[in-house]
């Protein structure tokens, strides 16, 4: 099987969040921190489609400006 090309990234996250991540890994939910971040990113990208976000935001602008409630 061809290995998947990967890129290493560095990111700063709140320590509080990192401790939660670490706890999940230690508890055995993920093989390592890389696996957890990969899963989190996949889920985020699955559910956060830019065109959808902007369509909803534009609907909100209309409601904010001219809604009746």
């Amino acid at each position, binding site marked *: 099987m061809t290995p998947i090309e990967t890129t290493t990234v560095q990111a700063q996250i709140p320590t509080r969040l990192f401790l939660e991540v670490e706890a999940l890994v230690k508890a055995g939910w993920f093989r390592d921190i890389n696996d957890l971040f990969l899963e989190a990113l996949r889920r985020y990208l699955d*559910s956060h489609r830019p065109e*959808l976000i902007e369509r909803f*935001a534009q609907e909100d602008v209309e409601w904010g400006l001219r809604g009746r409630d």
Partner: protein
Amino acid sequence: MLSGGCVAETDTPQVACDAGPIIHLDELSALDLLGEFAAVLVPEAVWLEVSRHRPEAFQREQASLQRVTVEQEEDPAFDALAQALSLGAGERQAIQLARQRSGAFLLTDDAAARLVAESLGLQVHGTLGILIRAARRNQRKPAEVLALLESLPDNSTLHLRADFLAKVIQQFKDAYGL
């Protein structure tokens, strides 16, 4: 052109909140904007999520947030949709709560949650709508709302494309003659 203070004739609805709007409004020191709704209902899972990621939001008590235990109802269609779009426990409970309270809005900044909720016939709004509505409801002066919109990239974790936010800001300025 709109003017600040054109408060609508209708009563304000109840809202069921997902974590995003609570966190984003608190980051902007604007959580009090939710105080105008008839009730601000926060399901248990969302309460726990906000407690973990933005505990200070509950310490300020600006919006009389009500912690609510959501009655679990069997709904295979909803479960399938929620699972397909990877909704978290908080998003699921917020949608369920809005469905259980007649006429309640859902407040969420999560596109997937909004997609599911709208497909179920719920009225859904997010942080951006709440901010802009504040001028219409005379909760803030238009210039104050403008400042909040302009501060979004620096002061909040609500992520919008810069070009898109600029367009929104222009629409707001045009509407209020700013």
